[in-house]
């Protein structure tokens, strides 16, 4: 097991360089001159654009830009944004907030998704199952913007139960409402996945065996059915971390959260190579770790899964 985890850590090295190279190249390949665009409809003198371009090494060939970035990286310098802020400061500000938001969303979608999916799976074809289906469909087909707007309006403005937007420090409490919005789409996936697995496993031999052994239905359901149904759900949650962190652009916008999604999106639009690459590199590492965690969870959930090598 330890060897397995160690191997996975080592895999991060090629993944890191591969990903940063690829992303840096993609930002480089985005059409348009990012510096000229900084000034909007009021272009400065031509010499100004050239000078600023040189300041950010944008006048150099791609491979030089990339090597300069990697070189800086080893000295703990991730470059600066076009406003002159060190990228590392921006990351130190955005990642903790996003981590809190994503964890909350993950907890909310996992908790409610699994419970609703479990009940729906146990009562397949009944009213509860149908209602869960309707809610899932609604969340799939109504855009996040609207879900966020409605919740913000009802809970933030009408009822006053939550702050309308999140303050700069973004404490846990203020992030609950945004986390619910963020979790809404994934909720549909979790419900459907849990429901399907539970329905399948209800008829499985081990359940019949367990029932035959005289175990209570509650114990059969929670220990045997649920545990064996969680493998696909856990896989999905592991994959979902990414969408929750980088994909939260709309939710972050609605609630004015300074998170990873919005920062990366703005940096892509502005063409800020170092910002995009640094953020995405961290995201890749998070993915590798999340997937490692998921793989370890498999072994815990399903004893038949073993990692021999």
């Amino acid at each position: 097991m330890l060897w397995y985890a160690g191997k996975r850590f080592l895999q991060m090295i090629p993944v890191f360089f591969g990903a940063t190279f690829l992303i840096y190249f993609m930002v480089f390949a985005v059409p348009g001159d990012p510096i000229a665009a900084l000034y909007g409809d009021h272009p400065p003198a031509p010499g100004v654009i050239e000078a600023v371009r040189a300041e950010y090494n944008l006048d150099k060939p791609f491979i030089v830009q990339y090597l300069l970035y990697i070189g800086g990286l080893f000295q703990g310098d991730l470059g600066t944004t076009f406003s002159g802020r060190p990228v590392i400061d921006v990351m130190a500000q955005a990642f903790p907030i996003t981590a809190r938001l994503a964890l909350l969303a993950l907890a909310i979608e996992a908790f409610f998704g699994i419970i609703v999916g479990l009940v729906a799976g146990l009562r397949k074809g009944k009213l509860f199952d149908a209602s869960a289906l309707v809610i899932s469909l609604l969340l799939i087909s109504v855009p996040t913007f609207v879900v966020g707007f409605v919740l913000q309006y009802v809970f933030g403005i009408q009822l006053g139960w939550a702050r309308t937007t999140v303050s700069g420090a973004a404490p846990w409490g203020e992030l609950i409402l945004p986390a619910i919005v963020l979790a809404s789409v994934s909720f549909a996936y979790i419900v459907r996945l849990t429901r399907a697995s539970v329905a399948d496993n209800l008829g499985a031999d081990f359940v019949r065996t367990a029932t035959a052994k005289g175990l209570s239905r509650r114990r059969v359901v929670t220990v045997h059915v649920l545990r064996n149904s969680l493998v696909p759900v856990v896989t999905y949650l592991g994959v979902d971390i990414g969408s929750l962190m980088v994909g939260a652009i709309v939710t972050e916008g609605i609630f004015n959260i300074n998170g990873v999604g919005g920062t990366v999106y703005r940096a892509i639009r502005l063409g800020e190579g170092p910002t995009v690459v640094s953020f995405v590199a961290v995201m890749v590492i998070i993915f590798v770790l999340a997937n490692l965690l998921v793989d370890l969870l498999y072994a815990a959930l399903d004893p038949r899964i073993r990692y021999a090598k």
Partner: protein
Amino acid sequence: MGISAIALLSASALALAGCSASEAPAESDTAAIITTNGSEPQQSLIPTNTTETGGGKIVTSIFAGLVSYTADGDVVNEVAQSIESEDGQVWNVTLNDGWTFTNGEAVTSDSFVKAWQYGALLSNAQSSSYFFDNIEGFSYDEESELTGLDVVSDTEFTVTLINPEADFPLRLGYSAFMPLPESAWEDLDAFGENPVGNGPYMVAEDGWQHDVQIDLVTNPDYDGVRKAVNGGVSIIFYTSQDAAYADALGGNLDILDAVPDSAFATYESDFPGRSVNQPAAIFQAFNMPYYLEHWSGEEGKLRRAAISMSIDRAEITDVIFQGTRTPATDFTSPVIAGHSDNLAGAEVLDFNPDEAVKLWAEADAIAPYGDTVFDLAYNADGGHQAWVDAVANSISNTLDIEAVGKAYPTFADALNDRDANALTGGTRAGWQADYPSLYNFLGPLYVDGAGSNKEGYSSPEFEKILAEGASASSVEEATAKYQEAQEVLLVDLPSIPLWYSNVTGVYSDTVDNVVFGWDSVPLYNEVTKG
């Protein structure tokens, strides 16, 4: 017609709002902090490098220049006692005594001259450098000192211009012309993070939390025309106007100066009697490049006029923008002195389907347009799709051609095709004035070779009249010339004017006396709270 009525209405609404505010002298709290919306400055706060609204709002609050602007865009002296010239070429500036920066340094001639020299120098790459291009010694191509700046004494200096300019003082309230203290030159980067100014407000200690907000507090030593009646302003940075609007609705924001389009239909009822909707110094149009087939020469002129007359500006501003835009009648803005709604030839901006079809047919007689698709480029990240679609529909309904919007993912991408003369159709074009002058709407946009003249317009006639206006001996004479120059533009239509953006703002019931300036920024210093 309806256009002037709308302008009148909003003007009187403004007057009413002003009245009721002054009639209600609630006990206001001079220590109260006003909260308002803004965006993270794109650069550190060095005045000559601040050209966007996020940073501009802060710079004008913490610095005081030679002059400042009233809500109507009139110029009043601030640090200057007088700015005088006999020929419009050599200007004598005299400063008032007693002005200090918040670190105690006196504001002297050097404070201005050194800051301007820095801003103009090529190697400093300041975004506002072109504002100094009419001062003697300026160069776009080489390192060159502004020889036209001459310090006479601590309170007197002269500015010698390359070409005479009657309304030179008009631009001196712009952020590029602010003074800087000596301490700035020790470490300008550090200064930009923690600027020391001489304006009505100053940055609170550790007041700038990047990407979150900046806290400004009243400068107790300020004694100019913009003296604050409140304790300070906290500018909260938003990445989405919808979030800012929600905060205003939720009572977390005192003043919002940009209502999002999702609230256009409801902001007046959401904030009864506490909303503002008045024209701003923002001109919006689209340009047809001269390098495209069908769009040059006589054919191009006919087609531009036909397109212009096939757009129902009144209906689009009314339906899509819910009255938060004002249909254009010239190439400037109603908040600028000298704006006109009865220029000769302005009827080309009226919706006139019959005439449009006629002119289009005349152009087709020169060279048939055929099945060419008329497209209109815009950057998708700027919220332009709705009006572009509406304009395209209006054109296609009137002229029976296929007209569509063409979305570019980013502003940089769209700009790239404009700069490379690679457009396949029209392009969105907008201009927000830097300072309240007609010239600022004309020179940078339509003079051959000017920075924002990207679609290749060139008219010796227009440039001659414009130059006459710039060197006119009086402001009245200059205005007449600038209007005449616009009449040339109305014939050529290098830009097809659409509308003026309005400033749409709302404010909570905890604040009073909220007046929006010509530059769409509320006059924070006059706001009372409590």
